[in-house]
């Protein structure tokens, strides 16, 4: 009986068998060393132990604290976004007919993300019940008082949330590496947030030029006014974002801001040094890839504490009582 062939066969019906075994690495190493030499008599008991460990419920349902922490921050950001879009959709003519399908789709995506993250966290979620809209202050302390009556302001805040979300998931992803299901989940949410960010930016270009719907996508970005007519991706630091200087930290550096190639660090969005090497090509006089293109080609991550510092501006007293973004 070839144990590894058996595992290979099991893989036909359970593609995650290696993952199940791999997450119990000590058991796994035991198999690698002994699989082919175990006596026939010892094998059944050994097999039983092995697969009980791989498939048993055990304590595997409790996530390590750093994992639960990053998932809870993600969950709180999803609530922040969900209620923002839900209030927007309920605010009279704030969202035009041309934009309602998109904002409805985004709100629904955020709701799905709440479901997925709660499903992963279960009893480790920061709160047993859902925070309501009252947990958030979308004026950010009277900075955006017209956020639910002025469309330009609403979409400026929307872009801020989406771009922040992209950076937050990116910063968190390395902490989820040991759990293949969770890292995959984070990536699959992360790319949807990036799609949202892209669309909101496209929509804002159109609004700034006085058009909406398909004409928005036909509106060029203005390098001289990236705050109001941004590209659908982050160019340099977008001049501080849609509401500089308040939104500048969303595009700025995190902590640590510098590091060496093999480390995880969080430079500002205008970074063009990747893995220790410049991504600029050509000469200063005749660039092929200039600093704008090079910075646009990579989105940068942001560390948890920096994300929380920014999100705290959007927390109400009730949200503080719930411990949001702490």
């Amino acid at each position, binding site marked *: 009986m070839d144990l590894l062939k058996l595992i290979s066969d099991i893989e036909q019906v359970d593609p995650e068998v290696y993952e199940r075994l791999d997450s119990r690495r000590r058991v796994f190493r035991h198999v690698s060393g002994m699989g082919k030499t175990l006596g026939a008599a010892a094998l059944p008991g050994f097999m039983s132990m092995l697969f009980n460990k791989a498939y048993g419920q055990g304590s595997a349902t409790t996530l390590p604290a750093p994992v639960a922490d990053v998932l809870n921050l993600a969950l709180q950001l999803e609530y922040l976004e969900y209620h923002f879009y839900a209030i927007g959709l309920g605010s009279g003519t704030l969202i035009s007919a041309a934009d309602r399908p998109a904002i409805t789709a985004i709100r629904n*995506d955020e709701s799905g993300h709440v479901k997925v993250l709660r499903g992963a966290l279960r009893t480790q979620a920061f709160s047993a019940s859902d925070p309501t809209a009252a947990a958030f202050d979308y004026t950010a302390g009277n900075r955006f008082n017209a956020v639910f009556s002025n469309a330009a302001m609403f979409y400026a805040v929307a872009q801020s949330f989406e771009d922040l979300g992209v950076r937050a998931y990116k910063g968190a992803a390395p902490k989820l590496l040991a759990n293949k299901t969770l890292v995959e989940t984070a990536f699959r949410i992360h790319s949807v947030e990036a799609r949202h960010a892209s669309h909101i930016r496209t929509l804002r270009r159109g609004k700034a030029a006085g058009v909406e719907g398909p004409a928005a996508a036909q509106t060029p970005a203005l390098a001289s006014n990236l705050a109001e007519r941004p590209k659908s991706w982050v160019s340099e630091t977008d001049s501080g974002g849609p509401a500089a200087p308040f939104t500048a930290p969303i595009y700025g550096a995190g902590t640590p801001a510098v590091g060496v190639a093999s480390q995880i660090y969080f430079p500002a969005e205008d970074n063009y040094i990747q893995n220790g090497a410049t991504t600029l090509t050509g000469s200063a006089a005749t660039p092929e890839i200039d600093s704008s293109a090079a910075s646009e080609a990579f989105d940068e991550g942001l560390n948890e504490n920096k994300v929380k510092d920014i999100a705290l501006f959007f927390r109400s007293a009730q949200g503080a009582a719930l411990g949001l973004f702490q």
Partner: protein
Amino acid sequence: MPNSLLPGGSGLPQPEQTPLTPLKRRQFLQYAGASASVAALALAGCSKKDDDNQPITPVTNTEVGSGDAGVLNYVSAVKLVTSAFYTALREGNYFKGLPTSNSAEKQILDDLEKHESVHKNYYKSLVGANSTSGLKQLETDFTSLDFNTRLTAPGAARMGVLNAAMLFEDLSVAAVNGSVRFLTNPAALFTLAKIVSVDARHAALIRDLVSYNSFVATDVVDVFVPSSTTPGEGDGTGMERLKTPTEVLTILNTYLKEGSKITAALLV
């Protein structure tokens, strides 16, 4: 120059001559810092196929390998084809006919060509920095695309520029999302994350050009359908649909010439 991309024309865009290294474990370990995928390699080496002394893939195809190096090779191949596409379309009548100023589509396709070129060269630097032998040249085949047409109807004999751009951008995102589970190195994971969100931004904009408000449509996202006003109550997840390496390569290989096709037998 005569347009070499007309239907039935003899010329094709210059094939992209970018090396894609097969599994080069030593190099990978340098990059990955001797990480934990040794265990996975040990298992792979003991599979049925190996026991039978059968080669895992035909020799004409390039096998990307396993673990972090395999994933980087794999996403590098996707990126190579995508980058070659944005370079090739510039010779077509559609792109050439775009106004040189105040054209969103000109601006977008210029940007995408640059971004994808940066990505391609960056991945190349990660997977093959010091390679001097064993390189596999990948040659693209875009004969199924129509670079003279902006957009073709579904089911058309050849895809237009925006149809193909949408395909390659969505495919790039689905490929990364479907391969992160094979990574063991946090820096490699972080690198993929930095690039995939830019590709997702590209994909959303191209989709909005093709059909406005389709940036998170049901073909790319497992759309969440709420059953109440309570967040999280409803069907679906709001997560992007992923594609396994096998699913991605079935599509990607149609844009690679015979002898340049890719397999990912170990990324399963």
